[in-house]
């Protein structure tokens, strides 16, 4: 076994980072938990009760999770064909597609979102094109709508979906799909019964990354969604910075964190099962 090779590295090398993260990541999260249990006169679940019995808060949580699902679906519908194109392209085109996908990932989130203000604005590309074509008389309201947020966020997070899909489709043996079609399965049937199951680990990894990134993002939401739409991260910020209510902000963070972890756990479970089938 390679792991037992004489030149295996010393496991103690992992200790500095281990203690660094224990001290600066695990301890703060534990403190967050403790502070979220502070009520006016001692400790208890008061802050959680306040959140869970408040329709306004629950709607924000529901809206955030829905936004995550919508963005993830949009990314999957467009990202899968892009990964498919990548898999059947020659080498140079593969690199080019990967760089096009990487570019938004590495460009500043503020810059990417700024582009969407230009595209969706009253004098933006879409409105000017529609007015120019005589389809509408007055510019549409595209900024500050949920549709606008989903479109912008889908573009911002697309790389997180495409990269795992590219990896999964690249690993899949192309002979399997060929075999299916030679045996008489139509293209769509081959896709459903061969390509999709083989790509499933990549799909799940992509969905996991896209979902967590979209629900925890807030720059795109705040600039494209405007002040009217509130999602969980902005709610935490508002309570912590604007109102200075640290215990409630901590409780919101913990609830949000637990929700994200539940989704992550469910998707990883699905991922493990799908890998078992392949």
């Amino acid at each position: 076994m390679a792991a037992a090779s004489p030149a295996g590295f010393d496991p103690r090398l992992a200790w500095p980072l281990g203690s660094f993260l224990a001290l600066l990541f695990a301890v703060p999260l534990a403190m967050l938990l403790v502070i979220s249990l502070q009520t006016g006169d001692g400790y208890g679940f008061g802050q959680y009760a306040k959140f869970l019995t408040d329709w306004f808060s629950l709607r924000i949580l529901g809206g955030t999770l829905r936004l995550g699902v919508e963005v993830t679906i949009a990314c999957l519908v467009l990202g899968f064909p892009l990964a498919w194109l990548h898999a059947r392209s020659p080498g140079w085109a593969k690199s080019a597609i990967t760089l096009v996908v990487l570019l938004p990932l590495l460009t500043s989130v503020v810059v990417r979102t700024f582009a969407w203000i230009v595209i969706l604005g009253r004098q933006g590309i879409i409105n000017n094109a529609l007015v120019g074509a005589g389809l509408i008389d007055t510019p549409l309201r595209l900024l500050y709508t949920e549709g606008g947020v989903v479109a912008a966020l889908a573009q911002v997070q697309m790389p997180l979906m495409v990269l795992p899909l590219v990896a999964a489709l690249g690993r899949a043996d192309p002979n399997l799909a060929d075999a299916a079609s030679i045996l008489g399965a139509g293209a769509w049937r081959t896709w459903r019964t061969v390509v999709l199951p083989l790509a499933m680990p990549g799909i799940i990894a992509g969905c996991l990354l896209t979902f967590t990134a979209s629900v925890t993002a807030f720059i795109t939401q705040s600039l494209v969604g405007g002040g009217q739409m509130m999602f969980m991260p902005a709610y935490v910020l508002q309570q912590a910075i604007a109102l200075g209510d640290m215990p409630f902000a901590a409780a919101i963070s913990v609830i949000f964190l637990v929700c994200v972890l539940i989704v992550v756990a469910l998707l990883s479970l699905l991922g493990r099962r799908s890998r078992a089938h392949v």
Partner: protein
Amino acid sequence: MFDGPLADAPLPAKRIADWEGRSYHWTMAVLATLALLLMLSPTIVVLVISFTSGLSLRFPPPGFSFRWYVALADAWQLQFAAWNSFKIAAWTTILSLLLGVAAALGIARSQRLSARLLDSLFMAPLVLPALAFGLSALMLFSFVGLPVSPLTLTLGHTVVCVPYVVRNTVASLTQLQPELLEGSASLGASRMMTLRRIVLPLIRPGIIAGGFICFMASFDNIPVSLFLRDAATDMLPIRMWQDLEGKLDVTIAALSGVLIVATVTLMLVMERVAGLSRRLA
């Protein structure tokens, strides 16, 4: 195409298969093109609008000029924020490389449970909401009496950026051929020498790619900076975000143009040096 009996295959079935194959390829190709356009167009839009001669974000621009790039030269607040972000990102990358490469060497190629657990710990900051971490880090620092400063910023950034270094270094370590290490050891090289002469040169592209992504992630970080910076440390993405919330300033377009050109240049350099596209896909 075929001679003999195959050529006489029943026509309807063949036509259905043909139609099906074509509809599949067309759907996929159209959606893929749409996705490529969606990925590229925002960048192009920003580059075009940054050369506008007008005062608004009207698209297409009424004319073209360099006026907003000239205005950028006087935007001292943005320059100050950019310098701060650069310094913090540089320190974060140095610290992340020191901690992350060592940790990757410690856990890679190990099947032990402790290594798997540590791996989960090292990746956890990527999954958990960074904003929740920023808030809790602020609570910790105020609890121990450490005022927010460039130091707390660097520490906080390192927590959320070090996973990129670990992941990329571990990935290149797993591809390392064990025979090389065994060969080096059997020829009498000490572990330190094997590490310096064999391992580090081979995994260097992975380390560089990880460090690059770490730097970009730190430079662009907002959720952690929001909580851990002091009043004197203005960070570029936060400054841009707040400028865009207040008024739609075209100077931001010019700054975005500069950032895009810098990002593309760095990406192409990294593609040459570290094979970025092969590494991440």
